[in-house]
């Protein structure tokens, strides 16, 4: 039996009434719309609810509410996090409703969605919350019947006397459990005793989504709420000077127009770096605001370089030649000497453009700022960071700023940055009324925190027996190179170096689903495919040889991966895809990558239809430890594959004099139905390792598996993203 001290994260187990303010659930009627849509058929709606702890509330009829603490951006944690609590609590899932918790740093830790960390960081806290609740209910029953807790058993929310007839339900006990002292230590279930974890449970918001119920930030409404739009400078490197304020104010439907300034002293990483002064227009009709936006005539000052895509490419090339690496580097052995001794040497460069996030729900936020408080509601991946930024901007005590999370129409890293919430707060303060800020798609694409542009050069040397004796990676990026010095193949080759070179740009960039990993995996795993070919080896066998080296005799001590698990997913994908079997007209590529603590190997099968590649099958093998919700996990990997291949194939954001050229989906190309793989199979390695994340790790290997399959189909290697520009003679965009 695993015993665990509740002291870890103990604040979460304090009852709501005992916690500061106790106001966790007060006065938040709209977001009850964010309660899951499951119908609890066998149970009546409770008259009274009892807070067991910060995660659990039990009604007098036995209905259980579990709060999902983290933002839901499509990674399905609103279903999988409560599953973990419910399993340890031992309740029937049919009796559980899920509610989105508000930001509450007193109760919860790590209330953010990023880095595929939600499940990984909260695994113990969620289990403990459930187990603590179960223990308190058991103690309440034991007290009631004057027996010992060890005389009792529990299943699906019903406590039973082991040697007796008596039974009592959680609903009947809830009021008494509230008075039980929080145990110092609780027992967690054995993994083999899990009833919910490891079963496929459907999305708790599924029905609401399929019927169009209000769930998202853009759907939020409040009586008396105004609508607002912003206009940012057209180019990076420009700053707002003034605009035709009087004319805009006179337009139909425009109630106010003014300039806001969202400059925050000592800005955090998530605060806006690009456009700090913006034109805001306020009214009641989105369409009239859109029309008013088009009538804006503004003067913009040029405050820094107006950059072009061509100069970006040149500056990356120059940086790679300069050799001014920053600290993020590693050297093992003597690569230079080893290359001189090598019988075969190969060097290749890979590049990728800036990319926008393009969450389907454009940026938006609701704010209601008064002289003494600020209330924010909307889609954010980082509610705590938003709370801090608003507190700083408005000079309000953090206790007087509240943030609540709606369901989020896509994150991908975009909503880690908080400027749209801060802008909503600035507008609300100015007009003295609640407001919902809405970005148009054009605003959303042209004011991004983009995936940086990258170029990396890889070099490998083989000896006379085709063994890898030297390997170097050098990566430049705007603004940061995509290099992970301690990741594979570090540790597998005696003479190794990795260098990162950073190049300045005034284009705002940030995290984009599987930051740096998506590009690094694409480049490195494409390169290794070419190295294996040069060595005359099967690409999977070649990698497995390297992992054997890392298992038996690793080079260096700082290697960031477990070679056994890495090799494990390659072996699994080899078996499941029948690797080695050839089918006429089917071209296969393989890649594997480890990031965000999870291991994924993928095989892509491509055919050519009228000279155009069509993806028939993708085979994925995943090691993310215990799989909480297998069908949901499979879905994350399927989506990641499509996202990874789609962006590598089709997407780019280019600049002309600081102005993004692609402003909407007519020019910014995203993968569409007919371009998607016909089938994606996902297999999980079974083990009892604590679960790690899945929002991102499925994406990076897909880029290289696709490139490697395309090579076999076309005879061409794909060094430059978007790949489509190398397949069709004419550039599709840009």
């Amino acid at each position: 039996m695993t015993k665990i001290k509740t002291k870890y994260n103990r604040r979460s187990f304090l009852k709501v009434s005992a916690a500061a303010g106790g106001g966790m659930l007060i006065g938040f009627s709209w977001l009850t719309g964010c309660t899951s849509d499951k119908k609890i058929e066998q149970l009546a709606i409770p008259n009274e609810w009892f807070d067991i702890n910060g995660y659990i509330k039990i009604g007098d009829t036995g209905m259980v509410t579990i709060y999902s603490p983290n933002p839901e951006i499509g990674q399905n944690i609103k279903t999988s996090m409560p599953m973990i609590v419910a399993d340890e609590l031992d309740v029937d899932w049919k009796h559980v409703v899920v509610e989105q918790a508000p930001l509450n740093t007193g109760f919860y830790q790590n209330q953010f969605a990023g880095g595929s960390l939600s499940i990984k960081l909260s695994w113990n806290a969620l289990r403990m919350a459930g187990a603590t609740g179960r223990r308190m209910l058991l103690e309440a029953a034991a007290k009631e019947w004057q027996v010992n807790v060890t005389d009792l058993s529990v299943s699906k929310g019903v406590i039973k006397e082991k040697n007796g007839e008596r039974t009592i339900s959680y609903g009947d006990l809830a009021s008494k459990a509230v008075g039980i002292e929080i145990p110092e230590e609780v027992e967690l279930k054995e993994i083999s005793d899990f009833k919910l974890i490891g079963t496929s449970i459907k999305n708790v918001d599924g029905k609401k989504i399929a019927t169009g119920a209000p769930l998202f930030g853009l759907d939020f409404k409040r009586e008396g709420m105004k609508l607002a739009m912003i206009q940012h400078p057209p180019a990076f490197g420009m700053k707002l000077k003034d605009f035709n304020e009087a004319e805009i104010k006179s337009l139909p439907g425009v109630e106010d127009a003014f300039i806001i300034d969202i400059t925050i002293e000592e800005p955090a990483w998530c605060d806006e770096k690009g456009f700090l002064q913006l034109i805001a227009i306020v009214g009641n009709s989105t369409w009239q605001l859109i029309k008013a936006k088009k009538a804006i005539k503004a003067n913009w000052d040029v405050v820094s370089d107006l950059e072009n895509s061509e100069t970006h490419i040149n500056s990356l090339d120059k940086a790679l030649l300069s050799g001014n690496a920053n600290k993020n580097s590693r050297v093992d052995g003597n690569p230079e000497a080893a290359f001189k001794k090598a019988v075969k040497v190969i060097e290749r460069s890979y590049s990728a453009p800036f990319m926008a996030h393009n969450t389907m729900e454009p940026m938006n936020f609701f704010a209601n700022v008064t002289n003494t408080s600020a209330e924010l509601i909307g889609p954010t991946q980082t509610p705590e960071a938003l709370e801090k930024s608003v507190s700083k901007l408005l000079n309000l005590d953090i206790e007087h700023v509240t943030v609540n999370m709606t369901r989020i129409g896509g994150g991908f890293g975009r909503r880690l940055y908080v400027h749209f919430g801060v802008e909503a707060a600035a507008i609300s303060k100015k007009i003295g009324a609640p407001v919902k800020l809405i970005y148009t798609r054009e605003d959303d694409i042209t004011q991004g925190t983009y995936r940086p542009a990258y170029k990396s050069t890889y070099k490998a040397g083989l000896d006379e027996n085709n063994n890898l004796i030297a390997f170097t990676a050098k990566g430049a990026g705007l603004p940061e190179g995509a290099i992970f010095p301690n990741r594979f193949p570090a540790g597998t080759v005696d003479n190794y170096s990795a260098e990162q070179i950073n190049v300045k740009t005034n284009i705002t960039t940030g995290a984009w689903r599987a930051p740096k990993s998506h590009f690094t995996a694409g480049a490195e795993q494409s390169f290794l495919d070419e190295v294996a070919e040069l060595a005359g080896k099967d690409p999977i066998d070649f990698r497995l040889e390297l992992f054997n080296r890392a298992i038996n005799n690793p080079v260096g001590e700082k290697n960031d991966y477990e070679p056994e698990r890495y090799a494990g997913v390659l072996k699994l994908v080899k078996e499941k895809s029948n690797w080695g079997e050839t089918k006429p007209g089917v071209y296969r590529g393989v890649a594997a990558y480890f990031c965000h603590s999870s291991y994924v190997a993928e095989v892509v099968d491509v055919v050519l239809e009228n000279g155009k590649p069509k993806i028939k099958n993708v085979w994925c093998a995943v090691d993310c430890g215990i799989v909480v919700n297998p069908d949901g996990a499979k879905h994350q990997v399927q989506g990641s594959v499509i996202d990874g291949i789609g962006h590598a194939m089709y997407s780019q954001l280019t600049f002309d004099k600081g102005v993004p050229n692609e402003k909407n989906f007519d020019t910014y190309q995203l993968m569409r139905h007919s371009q998607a793989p016909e089938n994606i199979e996902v297999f999980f390695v079974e083990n009892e390792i604590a679960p790690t994340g899945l929002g991102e790790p499925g994406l990076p290997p897909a880029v290289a598996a696709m490139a490697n399959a395309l090579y076999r189909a076309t005879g061409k290697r794909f060094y430059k993203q978007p790949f489509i520009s190398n397949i069709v003679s004419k550039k599709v965009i840009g």
Partner: protein
Amino acid sequence: MPTFNLKINNKTHSVEADMDTPLLWVLRDQIDLVGTKYGCGIGQCGACTIHVDGVATRSCLLQISQAEGMHITTIEGLSEDGNHPVQKAWLEHDVPQCGYCQSGQIMTAAALLENNPTPSDEDIDIVMDGNICRCGTYVRIKQAIKTASKL
């Protein structure tokens, strides 16, 4: 501002709006039917798809003045209780990830099956290509459409 009478989900709504207002914003701002989503405003992403006299239509491109007299159905009116075959199939396959584009996907799929009850993969691709999903739920959308075609 002119007044327009709209027939939406079998109810009549009288709405005042500029005559060039896209139906999308009338639905969202004025009639509180927010299931129809804004994605691009230029008919490229399909998030705002509704049925106009049974035809899948991008509500961001349909002006209110053109919508009078037509039978308009939004995701909220597709079925009584979310029990349209496409909605049922969506739940069976657990299609959504973030979920934002899904009402548009469902409306396009429902219109497709209305016209072509047993679509081939190619038929599905052609019709569904106008609906973007950034989460990449395309494989499950296709499976769900095939399931719905049998319901």
